[in-house]
Structure formats: C-alpha cells, structure tokens
C-alpha cells in the first residue's frame, strides 16, 4: 500500500517562515557594496502615501532591498541563466575565460551628426591650438569574435573617423589595442581599460617609450560588470604605473579644498569602486600642475577612461586640466583662456562617447 508522506508542505512553510524571521531579526542595511548604491529604508506610513500606493511600492522595494544576502541570490540566478545557455544578462556578455563584456552603444544618425558638428566647431574655434581625439574601443570592439551578436564597434569607429576627416583622429586606437589583445589591456570584471591598455595608447600619443615602476594596488579587484550581474569567477589586478622621473605634482579637484601631490587616492583602493584610485573618480574639473620643463598646457575633455591615462602624460605638460562635461556646467571658453591652453585632447571610450550628450551640450554653449 502506498502511503503518502506529507513533509514538503511543512518544509516550505519553515523556509518561508525562516525568511520572515530574518526580516524581523536582522537590522536593515543602508548601503550595498556589490550594487554600489544605497538601499531602500523602511518607508514612513502616512494615509496619503498609502492611498496613493506610494507606500506599498516603497515597502516592496524595501522588502526586496533588505532581503538577506541579495548578492548570493543574484549569483544563483546568473549562474542558472548561464547554465541555460543565456549569453547576455542585463547587457553583459560572457566572453572567453569568463571575461565580462558590456554591450555597445549604438548611436543614431542624428547623434553622430551632432557630435561631428560640435567637434568641427571646436576645431574651427580653436584653430590655433593642437586638437586630437582619442576614441578608445571597448572590450566588445576588441573581442568581438568572442560574443555572438553586437554592434560592430570597429565599423562604427571607422565610419565616424571617416566622416570627421583625418586631421583630428591621428592615432588608430583599434589597430594598437588589437595588436595587444592577448595582454591584460582591459579588466575582466570591469568596464574600464587597464593602465597597460592606456600605456600602449599613450606611448603612441607622446611618441615615447618611458620606463615605469609597476605597483599592484589591489589584486582582488571585482569590477562593475561582475557586480552588475553578481558573477564572481575572476579577480582583476589594478596596477599603477609610476614614472621613473622626479616630476612633482600639485593636484586640485573642483570638489575638494585640499591640494594633493599624487594622482592616486589610496583611500579608494579597497572601496566599493577601486578604480577610483585613479584621481579619486570623476570630478567636474581636475587641475594638475607639474614640474615639467615643457611649456605646453593640456586640456582634456574626458570620461573615466582618462583617469588612468593621465599618469603617462605628466612629464610632457606643465599643466593638465581635466574637464568632465557630465559634471561641468561653467564657461569652457573662459577656462581655456584662463589656463592658456595650448593643446586640447578629447579622450573617451566609445560607449560613453556614443551615449552621453553632455559633450554636445557643453560645446553648444560656446559662442
């Protein structure tokens, strides 16, 4: 005779009850290091917010944010989907050897036309100055054969450079990085390039082959892409390239009253975004005075790819000013005159370059 044993119902009841009690017994967290964001706190109950359903929505977001070990659950989900053959999760592709690759931006024709117009405007306005654009491919451009479907960044790059004309883009970054694609020119787990990648481009840019001492600042670096999908198979190393010369630096940030003598902020070394060790992350402006004998003064319009590029430039300019158009809302023309800028460098990775419009907004405001 078959006798049914009714266990599973009680087991499930205990599991559900267990999570109920973890909510009650554990205190709420305010910040998630993995997600790099503040977590929703318990909403205040008011009749109005309850009637509007705002309270309920907020409460669900609170319940979900305070669920125990979110990152662990997300890891299960990502690994399940990967097991089921899913090749792209939340815009992140799995490349070879667990390299994580973010999908490419795909700009519209209007976007590209506006960008070209603005760069030409910059060129004409400051035709007495040296102007160069370094457009850096992303992993998806260099390792395109490792993923199944994507926007072809190299095609995008070439057609953009073609329509811009040849005198603004002087270095084919694709060619250089492709030559070194078997080296660690990008982090496996992060969307940035490494200092090594930056060095290969800067060697070409400064037409030199300087010697550097290499220090590893963090050998357990877990980058943004790994955190985005909670996929922790690889670690990266953040290497700092310190020039073998005695150039002195005075670094000023727009959002910090202190003056620093280094390009590295060591307190970020093991923070939730360790890449911020380079210049402490993004700021509206950073101004770097150097003891270099070279008279030239450089302005860089940039995104965060420039942050690990600057260390390779310090002996070639007496002053380097970084402007991040996403946070900079002042008069650029005035700044250029004040700083007596002689060289302008636009340094962007393709994903930001073809997605973010703050560059255009900034140039639009120049008369």
């Amino acid at each position, binding site marked *: 005779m078959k006798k049914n044993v009714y*266990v599973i119902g009680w087991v499930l009841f205990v599991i559900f009850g267990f999570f109920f009690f973890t909510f009650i017994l554990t205190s709420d967290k305010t910040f998630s290091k993995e997600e790099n964001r503040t977590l929703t706190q318990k909403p205040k109950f008011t009749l109005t917010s309850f009637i509007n359903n705002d309270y309920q929505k907020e409460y669900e977001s609170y319940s979900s944010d305070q669920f125990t070990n979110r990152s662990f659950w997300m890891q299960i989900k990502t690994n399940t989907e990967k097991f089921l*053959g899913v090749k792209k999760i939340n815009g992140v592709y799995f490349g070879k050897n667990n390299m994580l690759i973010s999908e490419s931006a795909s700009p519209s024709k209007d976007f590209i036309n506006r960008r070209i117009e603005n760069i030409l405007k910059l060129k004409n306005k400051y035709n007495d100055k040296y102007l160069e654009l370094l457009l850096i491919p992303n992993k998806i451009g260099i390792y395109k054969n490792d993923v199944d479907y994507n926007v072809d960044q190299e095609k995008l790059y070439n057609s953009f450079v073609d329509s811009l004309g040849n005198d603004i883009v002087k270095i084919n970054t694709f060619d250089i990085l492709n030559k070194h694609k078997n080296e660690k020119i990008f982090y496996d787990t992060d969307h940035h390039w490494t200092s090594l990648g930056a060095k290969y481009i800067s060697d070409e840019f400064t037409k030199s082959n300087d010697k550097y001492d290499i220090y590893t600042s963090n050998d357990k670096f877990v980058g943004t892409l790994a955190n985005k999908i909670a996929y922790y198979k690889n670690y990266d190393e953040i290497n700092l390239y310190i020039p073998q010369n005695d150039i002195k630096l005075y670094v000023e940030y727009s959002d910090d009253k202190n003056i620093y003598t280094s390009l590295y902020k060591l307190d970020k070394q093991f923070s939730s975004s360790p890449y911020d060790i380079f210049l402490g992350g993004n700021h509206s402006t950073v101004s770097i005075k150097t003891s270099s004998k070279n008279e030239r003064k450089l302005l860089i319009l940039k995104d965060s790819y420039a942050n690990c590029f600057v260390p390779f430039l310090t002996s070639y300019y007496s002053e380097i000013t970084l402007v991040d158009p996403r946070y900079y809302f002042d008069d650029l023309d005035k700044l250029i005159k004040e700083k007596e800028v002689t060289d302008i460098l636009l340094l962007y990775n393709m994903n930001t370059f073809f997605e973010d419009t703050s560059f255009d907004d900034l140039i639009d405001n120049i008369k």
Partner: protein
Amino acid sequence: MSFNSITFCFKFLPLILFIYFFIPNKIKNAYLLVASLIFYAFGSAKDLGIMILLLIYNFFAVNKMNKLNNRYRKLKFLEIIFVNVFLLCYFKYYFLFLDFVTYNKEFSYKKFLLPLGFSFYIFSMLSYVFDVFRKKIPNETNIISFGLYITFFPKLLMGPIVRYEDFKKNIENHPFSSELFHNGFKRFIIGLAMKVMLANTFLTLTSSYQVNSMLGAWIIILAYAFQIYFDFAGYSNMAIGLSNLFGFQIEENFNYPYISKSVSEFWNRWHITLGKWFKDYIYIPLGGNRTSKLKMIRNLMIVWILTGMWHGASYNFIIWGLYFGIIVVLEKTVFKNLLKNVPSFLRIILTFILVSIGWIFFFNNDIEKIMIHLKYAFDFNNKIDTEALFLIKNYYLIFIIGFIGSMPIFDKIGTILYEKHFVLYNILTNIAIILLTILSISYMISGSYTSFLYFNF
C-alpha cells in the same frame, strides 16, 4: 501586492498562515475576509472603498430581490445587473469612448484607472446574482460568507472566477488537511516558478527586440505564447495552491491549452472559468446552439466580441475577440467535417499557430504595430536578421523548457513513476520543489538587482 512579490511571499503569507493555524475555527472566515481586504489595500488602497460599497450593495440588493415577487423581482434583478454592468463599463470603457468621440480633436482629460481586479470582481458578483435570480442557489444571508466569496485573496485579482455554489461548500467546511496543505504549497511554488522564471524571461526577450525579419516575427510570436501562458497559468496555480493552504478547493483554470486540437477546444482549456462564465450567462441565455444555425453564429460572435472587450479597453482586444469568433464559427460550420480527417498532431500544430497569431492582437495595442508585425511574419523576402539569430542562440534552451513546461510531459512521467517507483517519485518531486523554491527566490531578487554603473564611467 502580487503573489510573486517579496512582501507577499515572505511577510504577508507566513504571517497570515501562522495566525490562521492558531485562531478558533469560528472566526476563521471573518479572519480570512479581513486578511483579504488588507491584501487588496496593499494592492490598491484607493479602490478599497468602491469595492466594499459594491459588495454591501449587492449583498442587500440580492436579499431584497429574493423577498419580492414576479415583476418586482425581475425589476430589482435588472437594477442590480445594471448597476454592476454600468460600473464595469464606466470604469473600463469610459476613456475608450472619450477617445473615440474626441478623435482628432483637441481635448484633454484626466484619466482614472480601473479598480484593481474589477473585471474579475464584477464577474463573480454577476454570477451570484444570476444564480440567485434563476433560483439555482439560495441567497446568502451571512455577509461574512458573501464577502469572503467575493474577496477571498487567492482568487481576488485574477481569478479563477468561482461560482457561489461551489465556493459555499468551502466556506462552510474547510478543515486543515495535510494533503491539501502539502499539494497547495507545491502548487504555489510551481506557479511561482512559472511566473518568475519563465514568464518573466520571455518578457525580457520580447521587450529586448524590435521585430526586423520573418524569423524575428515568429520568435516573438512564440515568446508571446509562452509568456502569457506561464504568466496566467502560473498565476492560477498560485491562486489554487494558496486556496488549498487554507483548506479551500477551487476550480481549475488551465488544462494544457497548447495541446488542443481545435480553437474551440483551446478555449475549453484556457482560462476555463471565464469561458464557462460566458457560456452559462451569455451564450446559453441567448439560445446557444439550440435554435437556428444563423442564431448560433450570432450568439457566438456576441460572446467573442464581449470576451475580447472583457480583456481590455482598446480596439486590439475587440479585433482579438473577433478573430477567435470567426475561427470558432468556421470550425463549427464550414470546416466541421473537413477537420475530422486531419491527423491529430497536424491539428495541434495548426491550432497552436492560429492561437499564437492571435497573441499579436493581444500584445500590441496599436493597429499600426499589429500590421507591421503581421507584415514581417509573412515577409518571405526578409527571412533572417542577425539579432533574431542571436535570440535563438541565447534562448533556445529556454524555449525548449517552455515547450516541455506547457505540455503534459511531466504529468505523464509523474504518473508512471508514481505507479511504479513510488519512493523515487517522492524523492524526485521533493528535490525538484526545493530547487524551484531556491531558483524562484533568486529570480525574484534579481528583478530589483541593479548595480549603479553610470557614475563609474
């Protein structure tokens, strides 16, 4: 609060269930009624008032109706029907009507939304009113029992649409049963997994791709078919499972619709309780198929237009209803004899294709989008695009799982195992359920897992 929210699963449900076990039997129904109202308020607090008012109105009006005779009884009946139907139409179609009369004119107005679950709510109510009027059942004199019938939270928002006759037995007697509790929890997990693992994954697929080729059009059609099945059948599983936890047994709503051999059969297997509602309260009172063939066609078309309209207040749902109406009429008339000679598996495939094409009308609320999708679906000059190929590479296993999950394959294997290897059957199902629980939680959490990346660029 949806069943697949963290708040429901790990706060509301354990708490409600735990208390339920310890309160005296006498107050269990009242307790469930209060719990259901709290559940509703957590979904949409502003609509709670109208729902309760309507409930009280119907309760007293029906009792009053039953005290009247003949003509007055009928008048009272018409009044109740009018109030319910009017409110449903008002909330549901007022803006469709406004859109229609102000077409191409400058006119703006503030939209209000249909109260949460209103269509299901009114249909339960109407079924009770009809049945009492036809003296199929006596009127309910206990407002708690009536209130619980209407608001019982497992079925409140999305059905199944239960008849009072069937529900009444549960209200009177729903003792704790190990078997029901055990099966109910199992079913809840299966439903949850269908919703969060499959339906949501197919949703990600359909919303990530703009149809751009014939292949792409059919991938999306297939994904629609699985998405809505796992969404709705998953929800019904959760609803039935939850009812069982409290000792209630309610009607099935799905019975493997995608193995139907005709579209008519499909509608006997898909959202079964809605189909029955239309059959019992519209089709048969209109005369059904008992009079002339022409009248039968008329009746079928009325039912199908109403079915379409019931699903939503935009034109695409009317088209969707008409589409099925026409197919069902053709099946019952022109092709009746022809279909008998077609092999079963061909009929299953044909039915699946017809139903799937129907989902295009269901998912796109814009005529233009529907036309574009249909154009691509039959565009033999533009067969493949690379993005669609990527979708296949990316999701082929998920599609296979979707296919297996919507067929009675596991059921069949389960029955054989149960008969022949009982112990193995128990071990396997329990492991599977625990695994599904863990996976479902991880999928639920992932929905809100967002790592902020932008500021790092």
